């Protein structure tokens, strides 16, 4: 019991360490902007007063970190210790109060922007995961049961094609067929619920291919276990053996992959949301953040996406321990 709690605590402590590093890296990303961020945002025509005002409003006039190598009077770079009075501590202080700064362009709080877009991205990720599972389980079982046959080989090739076709090729083609030609589904935007179908399918295509391969190898492995022979000897139908006994055990590794793949979905959502104009975090990142050089929005989005990913991974890990007692013991 104690060892179990210790394991979970260790996992959580590690989580805090990784989140701290990720937030720190994202905070310092703005140092990478070539030249001066204020000029990059306001343009060359901005007056020195405007630039100074912009810098002081967003804290860009303050030192970026605890120490730095500023150019001294003699023209050389010298190590200088700034102490606690720096942008890094400002950023942390604000984050702990739920404040991600204000947009460089619209002055809106970044936290509010993210809050309004976040549900769209989560809905898209979950919908595509659901679609992927619905496609992958039957296909994976069929391939696994008929291992080595033409059906199996055909499904393997199909899965590889699904992995290789990028979303920005599948997406516009789906728009062309279902929204432009057939006019069955919404193509661009989020007016009603039908608008989620095409982006969710686009985003889930690669995942369903990966899952199909996993379910297949899982089924093949489990079919060789003694309990399958027992179940068959009891006279259970093949359907019951596969769907009740084999799948139950075979899906455990698939659950782990799902947790890890949520991150891939969140990152893939950036591209999918751009294709379909789906108003989630990805669209916020690409159209409001990157395209307009609104660096505080970019930072906020990157933080939101990566912390969601880290949390999902940790939850999966804990869930996996709970699902598979073999891991709990060791």
């Amino acid at each position, binding site marked *: 019991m104690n060892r179990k709690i210790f394991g979970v605590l260790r996992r959580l402590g590690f989580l805090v360490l*990784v989140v701290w590093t990720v937030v720190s*890296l994202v905070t310092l990303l703005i140092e990478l902007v070539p030249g001066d961020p204020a000029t990059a945002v306001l343009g060359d025509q901005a007056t020195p007063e405007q630039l100074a005002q912009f810098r002081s409003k967003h804290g860009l006039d303050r030192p970026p970190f605890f120490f730095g190598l500023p150019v001294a009077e003699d023209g050389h770079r010298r190590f200088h210790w700034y102490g606690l009075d720096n942008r890094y501590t400002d950023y942390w202080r604000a984050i702990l109060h739920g404040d991600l700064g204000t947009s460089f362009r619209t002055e809106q709080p970044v936290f509010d922007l993210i809050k309004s877009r976040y549900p769209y991205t989560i809905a898209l990720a979950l919908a595509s995961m659901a679609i992927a599972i619905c496609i992958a389980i039957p296909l994976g079982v069929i391939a696994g049961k008929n291992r080595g046959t033409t059906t199996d080989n055909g499904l393997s090739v199909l899965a590889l094609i699904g992995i290789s076709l990028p979303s*920005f090729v599948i997406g516009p*083609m789906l728009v062309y067929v279902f929204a432009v030609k057939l006019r069955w589904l919404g193509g661009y935007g989020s007016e009603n619920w039908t608008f989620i179908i095409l982006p969710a399918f686009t985003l889930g295509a690669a995942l369903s291919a990966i899952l199909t391969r996993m379910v297949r190898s899982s089924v093949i492995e489990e079919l060789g276990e003694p309990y399958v022979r027992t179940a068959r000897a009891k006279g259970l139908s093949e359907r019951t053996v596969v769907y009740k006994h084999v799948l139950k055990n075979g899906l455990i590794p698939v659950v782990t992959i799902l947790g890890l793949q949520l*991150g891939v979905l969140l990152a893939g959502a950036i591209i999918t949301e751009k294709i379909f104009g789906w108003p989630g975090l990805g669209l916020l990142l690409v159209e409001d953040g*990157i395209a307009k050089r609104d660096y505080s929005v970019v930072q906020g989005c990157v933080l939101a996406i990566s912390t969601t990913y880290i949390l999902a991974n940790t939850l999966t890990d804990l869930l996996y321990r709970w699902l598979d007692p073999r891991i709990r013991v060791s």
Partner: protein
Amino acid sequence: MNRLGIIGIVVVVLFVLVALLAPFIATHDVGATDLLLRYAPPSAEHWFGTDSTGRDIFSRVVFGARISLEVGIVVVVVSAFFGTIVGAIAGYYGGWVDRFLSGYIFNVFLAFPGLLLAIALVAFLGAGLNKLIFALCIIGWVGYARLIRAQVLKVREYDFVNAARALGAGDLRILAVHILPNAIQPLIVQASLGMAGAVLSEASLSFLGLGVPPPAPSWGVMIEEARDLSTLQAAPHALIFPGLAIALTVLAFNFIGDGLREYLDPRQRRR
């Protein structure tokens, strides 16, 4: 190697030839616009048709192979090189070095899902081919490092390593001469899959406007330019041909990776 792997090799050889011989294969100037011939369907003159400004899509796809190949090779070589060094250090020395590298550093880099870190880096650095390659290397090396670490952990326990140590070989010699050559096999598989990943990532970032800026004929840029509704309706081929080029290239490298994996792992070959 299985049949799909052979197909993959053939396609990749073709892809490399097209990239190297692009100036001789292309039928038109990649930048030459012809506003009288916008959205032309495929014909004897323009094999893949023309795009929204009347540029020849075939020639652009051919030159696009150059960008993909360049990004793919540089990213894979640089990431594999640094990944191997870091992974070998973590696996060979173990202890706190390994805990710091594989327990902490690897996980920080893996904490950014997929392309997000590359997108963030290019967003702050500014778009461009070199910055894109840099960003893809930053996210790419960890995969190789993890792989090599696991391999080295296994190989360093073999008797011939102990024998070498007993003979007085130094750490560097043991790593370079005895361990790495025996640990490198899966790296070939990873590199092949890595080429697929790099080609796909380059197209993705260029599609997002973060890669090679237009009018360069990157496949991702071509798709971005072809996906608005008016172009889709007038000239779906402007999307289909660069899309096919990406899909075929990525598929071919994946076929090779999968084929090699099976070939190198006799347990899988029987399946």
